[in-house]
């Protein structure tokens, strides 16, 4: 269908792609995997002829006997949307906010002159029905902001397949979505491939997604294809060391030495957290929104407790309540035998610290690392005299050179920043660290390292963790007990192994079923 031959791209002289060759077979799903910055997306944009300004490209992208790289812009416009469709990662921003979804789908037909305005709307309604948005429930006159992320991605798909293209390029189409939504979107893509007989180029960082979807796989690293082939044999063989490493990191299981159970240090009973409704006029308020509803659990010293759930389920709200940042409207949170809330004493507060998701937003860019890491000392009556030594010590604990303390945060990579965030959480020698999606923004190989670090620190410092994540496989790997949260409530809780092996609640089952995984038997060869 499309064959890239020695495709190279450089932007302002910097090489992004080096002699990439991919074969996209007709009617098949081709997976392109790699970590961030590997050049996956750039390959797709090169095929579409939509590279950013200043990009220089060489090699060939053959569609039939036509080289798309030499094709004039006019003709490329005829091809885009008609013979090749594309969808992107961020459904929240991929649609024009001021146009209705019907118009946006119909536009594909209209710009290619394939239908009159009225016909285009009819076809748009059909296509939207096909992707699961029937007009009786989702009228064409809806605007994007009235839809959820998954629904918007469906609109984007309808737009891209409106003219039944020969190839659909999907660039991380489910990365921004929850796991159950991801499963639905992937199913939809699979069905469309069969129905329309089109090819699909699926770009993702997730090996498990590729394993479940693709007929062929190409693994990319630093602008080069390191390994390519039919999916199953490639996974079974894993000839290239990078593929092996990537795979090992995905399935990584940090070594854990379970600590003997001790007394509870955190105790939640029937905790309710409500947000006031939106302000109406100067004095009025709308109905309050209950983000956390009657949550109870205990956490013991030295224990790792997982909290899984999809976005908007109340995980982060619960975190903020546990950290004592927001008042609760019902029930009680007790830590170290004190009631937690905005007036929780600072001395005890230093016993609970936190690591956030985004390594880029977690630090004041104008402070040096020493001051950043030492910030929780504010909780102590007076900063310790050996502040610099303490900072140096925790930096060493997290595997960084103590010299780091005199540098600014922008000099560090994402993984290093997450280590600094952990150092900041360790500085007050806490008993409990809340890890709020702490590894979610990291590439798999970095993630594996950070997970190891977290496990080591737990044993060394006798820490308890609350490990919050949307990623079930990570939670499974690092926690003793797990709770599943949905719409503000804990629907299931128990020993991690038990919950994952024999889920009781339908929602838990749904979550586990939706999580993509690499078939067990593909992995046997390597363990042997």
């Amino acid at each position, binding site marked *: 269908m499309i064959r890239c031959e020695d495709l190279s791209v450089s932007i302002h002289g910097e090489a992004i792609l080096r002699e990439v060759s991919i074969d996209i077979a007709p009617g098949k799903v081709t997976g392109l995997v790699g970590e961030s910055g590997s050049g996956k997306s750039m390959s797709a944009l090169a095929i*579409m002829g939509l590279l950013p300004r200043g990009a220089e490209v060489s090699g060939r992208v053959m569609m039939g006997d036509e080289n798309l790289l030499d094709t004039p812009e006019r003709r490329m416009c005829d091809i885009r949307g008609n013979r090749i*469709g594309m969808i992107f990662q961020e459904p929240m921003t991929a649609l*024009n906010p*001021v146009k209705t979804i019907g118009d946006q789908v119909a536009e594909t037909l209209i710009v290619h002159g394939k239908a009159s305005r009225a016909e285009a709307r009819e076809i748009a309604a059909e296509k939207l029905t096909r992707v699961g948005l029937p007009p009786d429930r989702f009228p064409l006159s809806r605007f994007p902001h009235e839809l959820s992320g998954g629904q918007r991605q469906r609109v984007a798909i309808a737009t891209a397949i409106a003219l039944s293209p020969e190839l659909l390029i999907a660039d991380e189409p489910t990365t921004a979505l929850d796991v159950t939504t991801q499963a639905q979107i992937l199913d939809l893509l699979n069905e469309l491939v069969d129905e329309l007989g089109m090819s699909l180029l699926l770009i993702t960082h997730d090996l498990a997604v590729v394993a479940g979807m693709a007929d062929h796989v190409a693994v990319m690293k630093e602008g080069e294809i390191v390994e390519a082939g039919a999916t199953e044999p490639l996974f079974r063989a894993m000839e290239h060391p990078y593929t092996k490493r990537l795979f090992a990191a995905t399935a990584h299981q940090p070594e854990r030495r379970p600590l003997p159970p001790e007394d509870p240090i955190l105790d939640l009973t029937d905790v309710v957290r409500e947000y006031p409704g939106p302000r109406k006029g100067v004095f009025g308020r709308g109905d309050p929104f209950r983000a956390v509803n009657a949550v109870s659990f205990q956490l013991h010293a030295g224990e790792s407790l997982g909290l899984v759930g999809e976005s908007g389920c109340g995980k982060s709200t619960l975190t903020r309540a546990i950290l004592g940042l927001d008042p609760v409207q019902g029930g009680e949170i007790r830590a170290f035998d004190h009631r937690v809330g905005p007036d929780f004493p600072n001395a005890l507060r230093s016993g609970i610290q936190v690591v956030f998701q985004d390594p880029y937003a977690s630090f004041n860019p104008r402070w040096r690392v020493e001051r950043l890491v030492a910030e929780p000392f504010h909780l102590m009556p007076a900063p310790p005299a050996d502040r610099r030594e303490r900072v140096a010590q925790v930096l060493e604990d997290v595997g960084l050179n103590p010299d780091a303390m005199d540098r600014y945060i922008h000099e560090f990579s994402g993984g290093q920043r997450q280590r600094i965030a952990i150092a900041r959480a360790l500085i007050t020698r806490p008993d409990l660290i809340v890890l709020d999606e702490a590894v979610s923004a990291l590439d798999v190989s970095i993630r594996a390292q950070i997970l190891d670090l977290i496990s080591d620190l737990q044993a060394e410092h006798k820490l308890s963790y609350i490990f919050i994540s949307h990623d079930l496989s990570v939670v499974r790997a690092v926690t003793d007990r797990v709770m599943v949260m949905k719409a503000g409530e804990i629907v299931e809780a128990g020993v991690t192994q038990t919950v994952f092996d024999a889920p009781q609640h339908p929602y838990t089952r749904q979550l586990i079923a939706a999580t993509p995984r690499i078939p067990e038997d593909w992995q046997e060869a390597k363990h042997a």
Partner: protein
Amino acid sequence: MLRFALTRALSLALSLLVASVVIFAVIEVIPGDPAAFMLGLNASPEAVAALREQMGLDGTLFTRYLAWFGGMLTGDFGVSYTYKVPVAELVAQRLQVSVPLALYALVLSTVIAIPVGVIAAATRGSVGDYGIMGATQLGIAVPNFWFAMLLVLVFAVTLRWFSAGGFPGWDAGLWVGMKALTLPAVALALPQASILARVMRSALIETLGQDYIRTARAKGLTRRQATVRHALRNALIPVLTIIGLQFSFLLAGAIIIENVFYLPGLGRLIFQGITQRDLIVVESLVMLLVFAVILVTFLVDIAYAAADPRLRRKR
């Protein structure tokens, strides 16, 4: 949409109320005895008493405020002390100059700025873009009254295409009236057009970088189609806000420009009111100006909601 308009209208009414209290306080409470203030030091006690009577200053502050504000609502703005005619009559006359002047300038600035901004954004980084950006930078820096003087020097004194000032009235014909307002409108419009063109350019560049533009291009739209169909409408949303804000600058600017060209508009009336200490005129006109600004802000809010579906259901 209706609900949105209603809540905005409510806040408009509230703003007007607060503004009127502020204006009333500054003009009628701070000077102590406004009548004595208006007549100056040499006024006879009888004259002051007569004016106090006319202005109703013997009532309590609250009844005076109610009388004034109620009068404003019913179109009774009081009687000018210096002109001895109802202020409403003066205003009606002067509006015939000021409103056309402000609109003329607004249209001129919008009609020039939007295409210029779009061209600059579309050819970003080119010589043309740099030229346009340089020219607008200069346009912003030029004080409009000085620019007005230069226009007079070139087009009235040297070339003699226009008269240097004055207004013959609309009775002399639409064309003659428009001609008399042309130099003032150009002087008013230039700095505003420069600002607007820059806003248009940066808004368009911003929207052209959005994900949905990439989606549109992936559908097969050409660069131009994507710009016209998707970027422009989104970029116009911030531009609309600026046009609304500019209205108040145009009103204020008109006060000055009317002085340069000796135009019998509201601006000159206010100005004469100040020099003649005619507080009755000043108070009513300031209220009127503030009303106009608040009203335009309200209209812009409504237009904003019409342009951006995300706002319609909020609030």
